[in-house]
Every structure is written in structure tokens, then in C-alpha cells.
């Protein structure tokens, strides 16, 4: 009995010894890399934002000038998302929004879009989707230029009835055999523009303290 107890304690002590060394190594690496990791994460996000909101559009620290946006039916979001504001010489020039198209062939399609202060689209990108590879995935940039078709479009230029794929009588192109996906994206972008129009002033409000006010 005594032998078992001794073996039990001794083994536990041994393992603790190794665990201590391991923890020490891990925590030191963690502290050494913590800042670099944070920088990398931010840089990656900025890279994405800059794809749709080109550098000449803003001179502010866009990653800091952000605004929490509560879930909205028009954006298709169910959680709070973040909007980034671009300002040029202090004047609001564009806002970067997240939107979700809920009726893709394979479910939700996450979008990020930049709307200029004029209500014109600066750019749209698909962040994630589950569309059929090779069929519906041409909405993704490297797979096809289709998404660039939104650049410069606005509700002023196209009537609401034009925000449809050509097959349904609208203005937007699509690929034969895959209409569901572009249909969903066009619809989501259109709704996001409506959202922008309805909330324009609040989106560009100088202070971001009252996100509740946005409805």
C-alpha cells in the first residue's frame, strides 16, 4: 500500500516539474510575440478594408475610427458588427459596412462593402461563403471579376427595380446555370445601400458613443 502511495506522489511530482518548465517556456513566448501578433491581425484587417476603400479615400486612422452597429434586418446581420469610417481632411468620405446575404445556395454569404459619402459603392468583397465550388463561387474575387461590377453603382444611378440580375429583369450580370448566388448578393448589397441611406448621418456622426441611437 505504501509503495503505491509513494509511487503516486512521486509520479505526480515529476509531472509537475515538467509542467512547470513547459509553462515557463510557453508564457515567455507568449509575452514575446503578443504585440507582434496584435499588429499582424490589424494589418490584415486593414489590407481587406483597403481593397474596397482605396488609400486616396482617407487620411485618418481608419482602424480606430470605428462604430458598433447593432444587428439589422437590412444588413442581414444578427449580431453587432463594426463599421469603419474613412475621413479625408476631417470630412467623412466613406464607410465600411459588413452585410450578410442570407439566401445563398449554400447559406449565408458574408460581405464587406465600402459606401462613399455620396451613396456610391466604392467596392464590395465576399468575406466568406459556402457556394458550390466552381459554380457559385465566381462572386469571390480571385475566381472572377464579377464582384467588381458593383464599383461605382449607387441607388441614384439604378432604380430599385434595377437591383436584380438580368435574368430577373435587372441590370446585373450572372453566369448561366448559377443565378441564385448573384441574386442573393445583389439583393444584400441593395439592402445595405438602403440601410446606408436611412442611417447616413448617424454613420458619419463624429462621436461613436451612442450606437444605440442607430436603428
Amino acid at each position, binding site marked *: 500500500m505504501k509503495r503505491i502511495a509513494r509511487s503516486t506522489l512521486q509520479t505526480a511530482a515529476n509531472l509537475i516539474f515538467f509542467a512547470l518548465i513547459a509553462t515557463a517556456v510557453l508564457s515567455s513566448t507568449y509575452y514575446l510575440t503578443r504585440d507582434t501578433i496584435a499588429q499582424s491581425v490589424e494589418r490584415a484587417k486593414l489590407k481587406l478594408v483597403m481593397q474596397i476603400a482605396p488609400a486616396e479615400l482617407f487620411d485618418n486612422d481608419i482602424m480606430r475610427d470605428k462604430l458598433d452597429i447593432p444587428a439589422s434586418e437590412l444588413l442581414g446581420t444578427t449580431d453587432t458588427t463594426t463599421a469603419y469610417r474613412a475621413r479625408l481632411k476631417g470630412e467623412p468620405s466613406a464607410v465600411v459596412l459588413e452585410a450578410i446575404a442570407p*439566401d445563398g*445556395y*449554400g447559406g449565408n454569404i458574408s460581405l464587406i462593402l465600402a459606401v462613399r459619402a455620396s451613396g456610391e459603392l466604392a467596392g464590395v468583397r465576399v468575406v466568406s461563403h459556402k457556394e*458550390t*465550388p*466552381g*459554380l457559385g463561387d465566381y462572386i469571390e474575387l480571385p475566381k472572377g471579376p464579377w464582384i467588381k461590377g458593383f464599383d461605382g453603382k449607387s441607388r441614384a444611378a439604378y432604380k430599385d427595380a434595377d437591383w436584380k440580375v438580368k*435574368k430577373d429583369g435587372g441590370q446585373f450580370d450572372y*453566369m*448561366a*446555370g*448559377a*443565378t*441564385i448566388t448573384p441574386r442573393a448578393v445583389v439583393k444584400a448589397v441593395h439592402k445595405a445601400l438602403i440601410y446606408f441611406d436611412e442611417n447616413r448621418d448617424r454613420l458619419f456622426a463624429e462621436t461613436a458613443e451612442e450606437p444605440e441611437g442607430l436603428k
Partner: protein
Amino acid sequence: MWSSPFISAPASVSQIMLRVIFAMVPGIAMYVWFFGPAILVSITLASITALATEALMLKLRNRPLKPFLTDNSALLTGWLLALSIPALAPWWLVVVGTAFGIAVAKHLYGGLGNNPFNPAMVGYAVLIISFPAHMTHWLTPHGLEGIVLSFPDQLNYIFHGILPASTTLDALTTATPLDTLKTQLHLGLPVNEIRDMPIYGHLAGKGTEMVAIGFGLGGLYMLYARIISWHTPVIYLGTLFAIAGLFHLVDPASYVAPTFHWFSGAAMLGAFFIFTDPVGGPTTIKGRVIYSAGAALLTWLIRSYGGFPDGVAFAALLMNICVPLIDTWTQPKVFGRKGDGK
């Protein structure tokens, strides 16, 4: 030194396969009648590719060519594949699918008799996964709005990808009845309104329903000639009817009638020509019942909830995987033994 018996029944693999091919004729005839002769081009292309690939693989595997090339199994694979994909597919689609089916799904597994998966269905799956866009260009049946291409124009498209200037691919092709049903349901339309759309006929899609009936007739011939046993088609179609019927009764707005399932897509082709493929199927009677019922369930599930419009090919492949297990579980009672095999 040869062992008894010294006589044998006048049946051969080659003759069985030939009869199966022969049984496809009514379905193909219907196809040509309703959709034009483009399918014959695909079938010819698939046949040539199948035989060429078979010959190449046999050569590489150091097997004699003649007995295997004349067993007609490669030809059957080619025909099945050609019938599973859009008739107006570009030539390379047929070639890639057939070659993949024969080379990878058949010969890499050991050739005739050793392939766990139906080579034609593997070819189909590879195509629909790799080239989904091309796999949606189904011809619009004759007599429907839209343009009918002349045969030379069809050839020109198949081999050169060139369409007459006056038309677009979109005007020529349409989604299959199953696909349309799925997308329209997705948009929130009830079944009865969707069924009023012009591409639908009495049972299922215009044209496609008659092709399915053609395959059904071929199947009846195979039953009559005892090439296939009744279990597979009866259980498959029966189960499909039962599941689809049940859901259709409960919610007729979201679930289409069972006859629609029977006569659209590859259900008939599957019931008589795909699930009856002996090589990838189970060997026991009980096993065939389980296999066919499982295939029907999967077909219905994939059609109703899956990512692809039709589920027959995937049902076949998925059930193929289960075959060894099904066979092990369903060994029949042996003469003079009790049920538990002791």
C-alpha cells in the same frame, strides 16, 4: 487437369452486358425524340473513350486486351455516363468523365469485377464536383420556348464551343426539372405553382418524364430476360415512393409528389441500370433489399435537402461503400444449419 463440371450454361459476361446496353435503347430513343440527336454524339464519344481507356489500362496492367475489351463492360460504363450528363456537354467533359471512371474507379481498383464503386457514377461525381457550371447546361425539350439547335450547330458547340451568333447558351439550355423545383422552393414558391411552370409535363419534366419511361421499359425487358432480379428496382422505387409520398401527404406545398420523383432525374435509370450493377452491389437478397431501400432514402434526402439537384449518383456511391458491411450482415442461412450459422 480440369475439375468438374464439364458443361456450362450458355451465358457470358459479354452477353449479359450487351443485353443491358440493348435495354437502354428505348430510353435513348425517347431522348433523341425530345431533345435531339446531341446525346448520340455524347454516347459515341463516351464509347470511344471508354474502349480506348480500357485498352490503355489493360496494356499498362499487363492484361490481355481481347477478352476484356469484348466483355462490353467498358461500353456500358461509357453509355451510362453519357446518359447522366447534359447532352450538350463539351467533348472534353465526356472524355474526362469517362476516362476517369474507367482508369481510376475501375482499373486502379483491379479492373472488371473488383471496382467497389460504379465507374460511371464516379465519373459523374467527378464531373459535377469539378465542372458544376457545365453540368447545368441541360437541353430544353423540343416544343418549349427557346431555340432548337440544328445538329451541325450542336456538333460545332460540342467540339469547338461555338454557338451560332443569334443565340446564347442560356436560351438553349435550362435547369433540370429537379433543379428548378429546388431553386423555386428555395424562393418560397409552393409546389403546385412551380409545377405549373412550362418545363413540367404530366408526371415530371416535359420530355424527361418520357425518357424515364423509356428506361423503365428497358428495365422491364431486363426483368423479363432475367438479367436483373426484381428486388432492386421494386424496393428502390417502392421506398422512394413511400418516403416521398409520406412527406407529400403531410406538406404538399413543400414536398413534391412521389411520381415526380420517379419520373425525374436519374431515378428510373438508377432503379434498373445503376443500382442493379452487380459489381458494386450486395450479393445477398436481403442485402439488395437494404441496399435499394438505403439508396432510395439517400436519393430522396439529397434531392430534398442536399447541395445537388439529383441524388442518384451520390446515393449509389454512398451505398457502394456500405456493401461489404451489408453483405457480412445478411449472409443467408445455409442448408442444414440453424439461422445463426452454427
